[in-house]
């Protein structure tokens, strides 16, 4: 892995896990991320497939339903924890920024 695996989540990892707080199939995840971020973040299909496989292996998500080739997933406790840690890390970054700049926009 280019970075320590899941030590920090990339933007796309973060949004995939966030979407999987509700049960979704793979293709729906792509649509949900786009809608959630108003088109700012797009997850490519190859990236989605590889990240879902990695999350499954790491136990961050679990397979809930298989209909033909359509598989649905849901976040696990471990995945939720990783998501919360990333949220706190981002909050720390935001807080540091605000304490130094007073929250002023550049």
């Amino acid at each position, binding site marked *: 892995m280019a970075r320590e695996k899941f030590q920090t989540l990339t933007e796309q990892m973060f949004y995939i896990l966030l979407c999987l707080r509700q049960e979704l199939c793979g293709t729906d995840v792509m649509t949900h991320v786009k809608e959630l971020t108003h088109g700012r973040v797009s*997850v*490519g*299909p*190859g*990236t989605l497939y590889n990240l879902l496989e990695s999350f499954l292996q790491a136990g961050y998500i679990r397979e809930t339903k298989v209909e033909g080739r359509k598989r649905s997933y849901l976040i696990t406790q471990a995945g939720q924890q990783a998501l919360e840690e990333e949220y706190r890390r981002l909050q720390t970054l935001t807080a540091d920024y605000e304490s130094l700049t007073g929250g002023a926009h550049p």
Partner: protein
Amino acid sequence: MNKHKWEISPMYGLLDRSSVAAHLETMAAKGWMLEKIGTFFWKYRRIEPKALRFSVTFFSAVTPLSPEPTDAMETYRDYCAAAGWQLAAALGAVQIFFHEDSEPVPIETDPAAEYDNICQFMKKSCLAGYWTIGALSLYQILFQLWRIWTRPVETLSNGYSAIAALIWLPMALLSAAELVVYYRWKKRAKAAAESDCPLPEMRSARKLSILSLVWSGLVLLLLLFSAFQYSRGMQLLLLGMLAYMALMGLLLSSALDALRHLRTPRWVNLAVTCALTIALMVGGMAGLLALVLRNSGSGWLEERPPAETYEYHGRIWEVYDDPIPLRIEDLADTDYDRWSTEAQISVSPLLAHGVFSQRPRLGESKDLPDLDYELVILKAPFLYDLCKQDYIHWLERDNDKVPPDYRDEYRSIDPAPWGAQEVYQAFYAGEAGNRFLICWQDRIAEVDFPWKWTVTAETAAAVSAALKGAAL
């Protein structure tokens, strides 16, 4: 108007994704859609000329032995289809998609995941092959160089042996280039992925690939040229072996393709491929052996059949009537005229090497002498010392195993009577023998005179007259 078109592989490396995509986009704009990719040929079908976007990706869960398509691969393709990416063609783990939009969401959008995926693909599908071919080619090149260094006359006078190192050189260079390019890319890509930046492009060694292909073609022509010195039967045998190897490759590839499409497990594909390879190789070797044994003595495979045969003590002996440049009659008076003269000549662009003998028939007279000699004609002056040392080292090859008084060696003697640059006489355990190494500017001869003879200035002059201008 043709509906399909075949193209020789444009020789881009698989990881040179942008070049492959650009090539396919140009073809689509001309009205040709990729339908099938192979190692050597790509197939296209005619379409309305379109501006399409292509993307090359790797499905790293698939190896060359995996069943295809797997459920996982179908799921991957479903995700791509949902994003508008349609499959154009696939070769193992390599998947080529196209999109109708001019600026679609790329298939890979996370550099870290993309980097991992490419590294997995390389590890499973390519690296072992590159390292194996590189190591095998390097071993073959070093082995051939070692042979040239230790037995230069034998090696360089044979057309195949002389160019054997050149056959392996392109493969060694290509494997090395692919590995160097990949590991350099990997280092830069890792840094980019860690910074969440797009991965760098990896340009393929396309010019080297084309050069290697041309080189291989030339070497093949040289090999065919060198086969002309063999008998017609041997030429047919060589062609048959080449055809069998091509057929073997085709059979193995077809069998593996069929198994993969039957979705048999990977271990079954591996076992069947190994068993089929062994069976075809053993079958081929057995067939070759049977063919050679069946035709031995028929003269079909021999370079030239004997002039006649005779029986002596219950065995059949062959008599040859080959022209030889130096005969016993040139060196001594004799009335005997039932000699067997044999010449074995091998010629390459670097050397011509002849091994000659003249013998009486067995049982006709015990007093008749034998004459054995070799002649090497150097077509490149820099080979002079290498070939001279070959003969000297061969005579002295066991000297490190015996005490100094029992050693064999070549000692320099006066070259004037031989009209040569240098002449050496063999000494066996300190005693002069009748073997001489005579070195002219463009040729070297090693002559074994009958041991009873006294080699005089007249003998030397006769040898010089016969061998100095002889052609092979």
